[in-house]
């Protein structure tokens, strides 16, 4: 029984050795490795400026948006203030001279 088990184990080990002899690592051709690296890097560098530009564009758009909102708010406040002041002036004049005489 033990001998049979030992034999089976040895058979499998022999078979593993055959597999190891068959499945050996191969080296990709140097020319292929270099060429592919160059192509990949070229593509990365070609897309990099676009990415930077888009990041810059996003920052600019954000800044422009922020400035626009601030300007709008300031303009709105100024309009309200001038309206209120104008109304006060008009109402003051009206109180002083309700019939419109100078």
């Amino acid at each position, binding site marked *: 029984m033990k001998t049979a088990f030992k034999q089976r184990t040895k*058979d*499998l080990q022999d*078979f*593993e050795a*055959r*597999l*190891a*002899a*068959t*499945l*050996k*690592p*191969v*080296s*990709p*051709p140097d020319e*292929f*490795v270099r060429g*592919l*690296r160059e*192509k*990949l*890097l070229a*593509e*990365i*560098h070609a*897309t*990099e400026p676009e*990415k930077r530009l888009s990041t810059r564009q996003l920052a600019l758009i954000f800044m422009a948006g922020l400035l626009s909102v601030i300007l709008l708010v300031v303009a709105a406040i100024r309009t309200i203030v001038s309206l209120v002041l104008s109304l006060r002036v008009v109402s003051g004049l009206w109180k002083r001279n309700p019939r419109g005489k100078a």
Partner: protein
Amino acid sequence: MKTLSELSDEEILAQAAQGDGEAFGALYARYVGRIYNYIYYRTGNAYDAEDLTARVFYRAMRHISNYRDRGLPFSAWLYRIAHNLVANWHRDNSRRKEIPLEESVHGRYTGGHPEYDLLQLEEQERLMRVIRELTSERQQLLILKFVEHMSNAEIGQIMGRSEGAVKSLYHRTLLALRDEYDQFSLDGMTDVVDLGTVELGKPGSMPG
């Protein structure tokens, strides 16, 4: 300041994901050989191995910014891409006859006796044919184990299985492969005997 070659995969990966070409180049240099080997043994020829290896790295490059660390090594992600591309390749080429592994088996001159070398090469060719009849999962396991010399734990990470499951699958694969190989060798010998009978025993029965 560490150079790229001194950094871990994860550190380089973080830089590559930010669009750093040199960082991606470093990852490429680390894995191109392994991915090529894997694809070479899965497809059986150098031309398709080159084509698919290039596709793996192009795909990795385009999707590296979307890469999410799920606790698996970066290599597992690359092997997954390679596995999917090889599966597509096999599907597309299913009607076409596969080309044998001519370069891996042929031309391996060991410097020994020519007859012995020839026998060795024939045996390796037979073995490769049987390996290529296995399921893609079992082929992957054998390639990672024998070509990449990975441990069961590493193979498990790549194949998405536990270490124990890989060990079990490996044992079953080995037994099945040995039986298939023995059967294949016996069939081959029978063919030779049959051919001999036709040629020597019944010369008039041969056409032409």
